[in-house]
């Protein structure tokens, strides 16, 4: 569904993405070629089924989660806990680690691998306390000039009574405001579900990437279907209508690049998925390396300032 207007920007950014990667000497040209072929398909219409397949992949229970990537791409990782106020929300993990020998601050939503962990981590749905932990770690990173990497993977911020009483909306707003103010390079990668405000709270970054089979959306397909079609079972139809897949997000200039996954999806090979993620992230940080804090802020705000399509 690429409109003819969006097309040039899209093509350009795809080739830029490819360019960066070869420049950095990617060892995985096969993955990139496959991604290129997939993106080519966008000029044709994607079917409802194809979009839905990606939604299912984004939610696959065997998909690597934040800590799976942390274990594979970071050295010397040290997890940081607590919001310094009331709680330690384990739906969001944060810490310091080394990437290419440099210290980076990591913040990411974390779903659970088994039922017990899922409950403990609230299925990756953070309370305001989780966003407050994220903010204080961002400020720590800013103080020490550590780049910030966020990994986004949440159905959404938790919609509960206590979460509202603790200020869910304000916390999401302020987390974005902190990201807009940071003087350090920031990269966000949507690695699974990028669900609405709960996702964008961690995604106001210099470079926003999506994994090939991740989704990023204003509402879940089920939620959209139950409101617009008054029938949650129309989720597949809804997903096709609002297009939460990476290719369309790139087309709409909402993201800056797509991170390839192993053939069949990230869940088929965690190590390879992590290696592809590591390459994309280090490439993105390399681009931001010598930019001054003021220029980082300016470019970051200008990028989001430009988002939207007017008649």
């Amino acid at each position: 569904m690429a409109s003819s207007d969006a097309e040039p920007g899209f093509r350009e950014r795809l080739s830029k993405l490819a360019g960066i990667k070869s420049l950095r000497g990617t060892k995985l040209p096969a993955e990139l070629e496959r991604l290129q072929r997939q993106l080519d398909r966008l000029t044709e219409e994607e079917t409802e089924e194809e979009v839905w397949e990606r939604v299912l992949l984004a939610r696959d229970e065997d998909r690597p989660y934040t800590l799976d990537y942390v274990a594979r791409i970071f050295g010397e990782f040290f997890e940081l806990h607590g919001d310094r106020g009331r709680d330690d929300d384990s739906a969001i993990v944060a810490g310091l680690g080394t990437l290419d020998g440099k210290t980076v601050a990591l913040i990411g939503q974390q779903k659970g691998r088994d039922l017990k962990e899922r409950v403990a981590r609230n299925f990756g749905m953070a309370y305001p306390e989780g966003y407050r932990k994220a903010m204080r770690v961002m400020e720590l990173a800013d103080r020490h000039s550590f780049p910030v990497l966020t990994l986004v993977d949440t159905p959404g911020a938790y919609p509960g009574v206590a979460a509202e009483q603790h200020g869910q909306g304000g916390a999401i707003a302020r987390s974005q405001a902190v990201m807009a103010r940071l003087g350090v390079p920031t990269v966000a990668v949507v690695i699974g579900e990028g669900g609405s405000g709960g996702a964008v709270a961690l995604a106001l970054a210099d470079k926003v990437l999506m994994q090939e089979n991740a989704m990023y959306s204003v509402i879940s397909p089920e939620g959209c279907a139950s409101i617009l079609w008054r029938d949650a079972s129309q989720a597949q139809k809804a997903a096709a209508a609002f297009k939460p897949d990476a290719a369309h997000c790139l087309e709409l200039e909402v993201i800056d690049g797509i991170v390839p996954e192993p053939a069949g999806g990230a869940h088929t090979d965690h190590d390879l998925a992590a290696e592809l993620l590591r390459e994309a992230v280090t490439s993105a940080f390399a681009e931001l390396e010598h930019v001054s804090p003021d220029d980082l802020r300016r470019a970051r705000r200008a990028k989001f300032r430009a988002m939207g399509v007017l008649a």
Partner: protein
Amino acid sequence: MSSTPQGIDVSIEDKRVVAEQPPAKGHPNTCPGCGSHYRDDELVKHLRMCPHCGHHFPVRALERIAQLLDEGTFIEECADLRSADPLGFFDLRPYVERLAEAETSTGLGDAMVTGGGRIEGSACRLAVMDFAFMGGSMGSVVGEKFARACESATAAGVPLVSIAASGGARMQEGILALMQLPKTVCAVDELHDAGCALISVMTHPTTGGLLASFASLGDVLLAEPGALMSFAGPRVVQQTTKEKLPEDFGRAEQNLRFGHIDAIVPRGELRPTIARLLRLFGSCGQL
């Protein structure tokens, strides 16, 4: 209570705002608080507050501006902005059809009116939402208008007053609607870097994406009595948690108690309160 039948379709996190209210007694000018019925001119005269029980009826954007600004000082900006349909969105009806219908029924180009004016003599910029236009949902036009209002306030060196009334992001614009959150957040950060204030007023309802972006970032946060201010709507929360919700769930009163807003201001005191804040924050550059 709402005069916008399509409102229910477009709010996201809080899709049943209207359903949470006592069922409308047939006519929008019938008070859901006490059942009194008023002529429209009576309600206008009373700032759309029930003279009997104090219930705050919804206020459309232009009427709100008339309530707040010194007479004859309003100069609208960006009135010509209109939504595109970047997704070719079609649910039960095409998005372009919904847009056209909303424009016809409200006389507005989108869900926010922006411009400049004076309140008790103090210059400011305003960004006022209109719930009647697709439930006050935020898409590209609302985001763009808000960002331009920040820039206009910065250029003039005056505070920006925002009046929110919204069900959330406009899902017909998909991910671009979500991007209006970071877009408006960046605009507030720029406004603040220029030393200008944001005075944010939340009216019923201010939910979802609005509460999770610029509306929560005011230097001062005010709310009208009883205004629902929640990220997730009561229905979604109830379905998710299966809990019985507290009676004032998400209302301004609860938000004040939990430390999220500075004050609840009845509509009759809103103009002098904002005027005082404009004097306190003063000008922050050339006028």
